[in-house]
């Protein structure tokens, strides 16, 4: 390859062309790598669509296992995103604006679920909220059991998806110029008013894209859910779990569920792009 490059350079020099020596082979190499990578990503996704006919897809959409998983997933992911936003927004705002002892620790802890393997999260949640868990044993006294219920699905999703929102929210809050907050205070705005009318609106696009990413992560949650919530159709069997289950018998249903998730994923990417482009 070196010799061809050398020859090309000579060619360029002799013809007095522009100084682009060695660029062509490099560009070619990058193009090939890029094409291979794109193929590697798109081929499997495209295969989903190629492996099933439209009729089969529509037919499996009517199957209870698919419908149950779809509705359960949408409901739980929405609820867990709402919980993450509700708890995560004040936390992100405080950590972006206030310095207090232990802030670095709080930051590390909120990031923990990102690096924690989902299976670890699952067993950890079970050890905490399971019937004989650290907290679960006391809840059990009151007849409350969380593990293997829809509540467990939501908890697992909140656990794994919260960092995606909190990180993004914190970064967006930090990007808001403090001057606006100072100006608002001198105009008579209480700290709560400053947060609601200045900081949050100015960080809005970042907050929305963080929430969308968090929703997507909740929707795709598999490992922690299957360990902590189990795999019961209609109660804890979310779409990823249903794909895993139906794959062993009814492949069409599995593929249909997968296609729905692919469509949602594309919608998520598009939504994030649209929201982040419209920066104020």
């Amino acid at each position, binding site marked *: 390859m070196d010799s061809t490059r050398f020859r090309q350079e000579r060619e360029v020099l002799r013809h007095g062309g522009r100084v682009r020596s060695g660029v062509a082979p490099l560009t070619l190499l990058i193009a090939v790598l890029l094409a291979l990578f794109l193929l590697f990503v798109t081929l499997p996704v495209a295969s989903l669509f190629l492996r099933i006919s439209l009729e089969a897809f529509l037919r499996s959409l009517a199957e209870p296992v698919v419908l149950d998983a779809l509705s359960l997933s949408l409901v739980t992911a929405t609820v867990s995103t709402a919980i993450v936003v509700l708890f995560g927004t004040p936390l992100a705002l405080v950590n972006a604006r206030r310095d207090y002892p232990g802030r670095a620790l709080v930051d590390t802890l909120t990031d923990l679920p990102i690096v924690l393997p989902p299976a670890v999260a699952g067993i950890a949640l079970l050890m905490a909220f399971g019937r004989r868990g650290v907290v679960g044993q006391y809840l059990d006294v009151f007849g409350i059991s969380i593990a293997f219920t829809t509540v467990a699905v939501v908890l697992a999703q909140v656990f794994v998806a919260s960092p995606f929102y909190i990180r993004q929210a914190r970064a967006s809050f930090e990007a808001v*110029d403090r001057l606006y907050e100072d100006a608002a205070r001198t105009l008579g705005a209480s700290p709560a008013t400053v947060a609601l009318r200045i900081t949050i609106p100015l960080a809005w696009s970042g907050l929305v894209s963080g929430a969308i990413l968090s929703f997507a992560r909740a929707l795709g949650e598999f490992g922690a859910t299957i360990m902590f919530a189990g795999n019961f159709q209609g109660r804890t069997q979310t779409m990823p779990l249903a794909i895993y289950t139906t794959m062993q018998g009814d492949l069409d249903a599995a593929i249909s569920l997968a296609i729905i998730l692919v469509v949602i994923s594309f919608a998520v990417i598009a939504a994030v792009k649209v929201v982040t482009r419209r920066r104020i």
Partner: protein
Amino acid sequence: MLSVHAVRRLRDFVLDVTLSVRCGETLVLVGENGAGKSTVLNLISGLLPPDRGEITLGERTLFSSGERIDVPAEHRSIGHLFQSYALFPHMTVSENVAFGLRCRKVTRPEVAFTVAKQLAAMHLSDLADVNVGRLSGGQRQRVALARALVLDPELLLLDEPLAAVDMRAQAAMRKELRDRIRNAGIPCIVVTHNLRDALELGDRLCLLEEGRVAADGTPEEVLGMRENGFIASFAGR
């Protein structure tokens, strides 16, 4: 009447200022960059707490380390204009001007009426529904001033009020600004790097050097101190 005695440890020196401004009087604060001019404004408006000292405005004590009083910025009723004006970018001109009134318990029709009156007085009525991102420097300055004055503040703090205004518009804006300050009849502190600002806006001139008041007097008196290096270059321009 505003009277300030404030001490605060800054990165390079200890800021220790004592000054007072009467009602209807404008004090111009000059000094090198980093002498602590903007910090003095922040200490007065409550955005930054002094380490110790006492700040009183009229009958009210805004800060007192002795009596452990520290009125939060939102309750000081001080109009503070920032150098970059800090207009809220997600709001229109009239929303910016209405912001402070909405923070108080003012009814909606009253807010609309007061804002419209203020905008008219500041020649901003045509721009009421314009997003502030589209305004010129001079227009921004007027909106920022309108936003502060609509609340009838008891003190006005202006940080480089004309720095972002077009050179050609500065003279007219300066005259307008002086009239507004006079009409408000409240104490006013102006931080500036501009000799014309100092001469035309100021009743008194105060020179800050490394956090200390190095000179305080009429503009003529202070500008006469040619032995001072800063004054020599400031007045020489």
